[in-house]
């Protein structure tokens, strides 16, 4: 167990080093969600005047988006790196050493979570500079960071399952539009009770990403909403558990084939 933890620590550091050596990826994952936040909140500023809108400022309402959006980017990058480790034979070489291969998968996921937290700190700082105040106060910050890490882990675990199943990075990159669909067909830019189209509201209600966003949003605009937080942590954890189970199955199959 201790050996596995030491191996996971080394492999997390390796994954972080590799991520940092690709500044283009880090820059895009960090900047794109912020740009999206500002253009969407600028364009939809008037929505805050709609009757029943839960916040006075659309920027505060939308601040939850980059935590999940950024998590999506780092998760895809982490899964692509795992795909490359499979393509280049690193996973197979690792299987020939005393090191266990499970820490490799964990290393990529923990690195994604760490990058997700780092990005979340930047988004929080930028949001504060733009005038957003957290209704949950300073105590809300660690909870936001935990949810941001959970979002990165959830998307990352799904990407890992695909990488292990297919064994190539291109298939993982193909996941990006799918994750993007999940983000867009959620309550990302409008509270569910204000979504006009019944079909869209139904999809957003079934979509776990809605609950991740609503949990994060509640800490920014509402304070401490136990139900929203329970749903966010519940959905995030369920996604991680399901994806890790799929990863474990795919991993076993891959090692048997090897």
């Amino acid at each position, binding site marked *: 167990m201790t050996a596995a933890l030491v191996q996971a620590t080394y492999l997390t550091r390796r994954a972080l080093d590799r991520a940092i050596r690709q500044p*283009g990826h880090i*820059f*895009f994952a960090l*900047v*794109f969600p912020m*740009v*999206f936040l500002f*253009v*969407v909140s*600028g*364009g*939809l*500023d*008037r*929505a805050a*005047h*709609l009757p029943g809108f839960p916040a006075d400022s659309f920027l505060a309402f939308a601040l939850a988006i980059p935590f999940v959006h950024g998590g999506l980017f780092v998760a895809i990058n982490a899964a692509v790196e795992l795909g490359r480790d499979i393509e280049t034979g690193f996973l197979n070489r690792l299987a020939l050493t005393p090191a266990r291969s499970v820490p490799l998968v964990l290393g990529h996921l923990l690195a994604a979570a760490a990058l997700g937290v780092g990005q979340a700190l930047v988004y929080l700082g930028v949001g504060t500079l733009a005038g957003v105040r957290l209704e949950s106060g300073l105590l809300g910050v660690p909870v936001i960071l935990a949810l941001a890490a959970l979002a990165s882990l959830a998307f990352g675990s799904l990407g890992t399952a695909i990488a292990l199943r297919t064994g190539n990075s*291109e298939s993982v*990159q*193909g996941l*990006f*539009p799918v994750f*993007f*669909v999940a983000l*867009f*067909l959620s*309550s*990302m*830019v*409008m509270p569910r009770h*204000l*979504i*006009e*189209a019944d*079909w*869209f509201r139904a999809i*957003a209600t079934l979509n776990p990403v809605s609950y991740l966003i609503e949990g994060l949003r509640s800490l920014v605009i509402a304070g401490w909403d136990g139900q929203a937080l329970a749903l966010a942590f519940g959905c995030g954890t369920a996604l991680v558990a399901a994806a890790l189970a799929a990863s474990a199955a795919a991993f076993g199959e891959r090692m048997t084939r090897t």
Partner: protein
Amino acid sequence: MSGAGVVSVARGVAWRGIHNAFTNPALLVPALMFPMIFFVGFAGGVARIRQVPGFDYPPGYEAFQFAFVLLQSAAMGGVFTGFGIARDFEHGFARRLMLAAPRRSGIVLGYAAATMVRWLFVISVVFVVGLVLGMQVFGGPVDLLGLLVLALFVNFAGALWATGVAMRVRSTQAGPFMQLPIFLLLFLAPVFVPFQLLEGWLRSVATLNPFTPLLEAARSLLAGAPTGVGVAFLAVAGLVVALSLWALTGLRSAERAG
């Protein structure tokens, strides 16, 4: 003779691009999915914004968003060309192509032509989805033809921009630098509400953004009440001229690099 050389090179490159696009789902699916996500996500999720006082667009919010998605997909479809060129450089194909082509400007034209064909397919699918979701089109055949030609110019401009970047950097690492400026241009415009309802910094930026008159003209054509169409065509023609120089100097840069 030289004109014939350009056409024959362009035809060959275009045929290869079209063949690759329609036989490789990894290339076609993202090109199709992103406009679809934007259209469904915005038209379905944000439609309530039309209840804001002063929002007046008779064909409805689906058509309002379709005009944006039409131009967005045209511009971003052009950017996908750059990805293909950068990939061709990484695999060494582009260099062999430049050695073989008697008139190298035909290479740029060929890539752009393939992009147009792929975009026409993409937008046809999105248009049908729009009609299924209840989009109303008030414009007549002449308006729609004008809209299509305007979007084709935008597509060509996007392809020229991305070609210029790809020919200079010759690596897929340049992807974010192809996408981000176009993304900013697209979203720093009246995407969610008409221009007169924009407030604050976004209104100031949208006033200067060359994409704003294009978007407003596209919406007016879709509504059957053309306004500002001449200005839009002038703006896009200016973009095409400037970006042609950008793409051709990029080609010269690639030639010098050998």
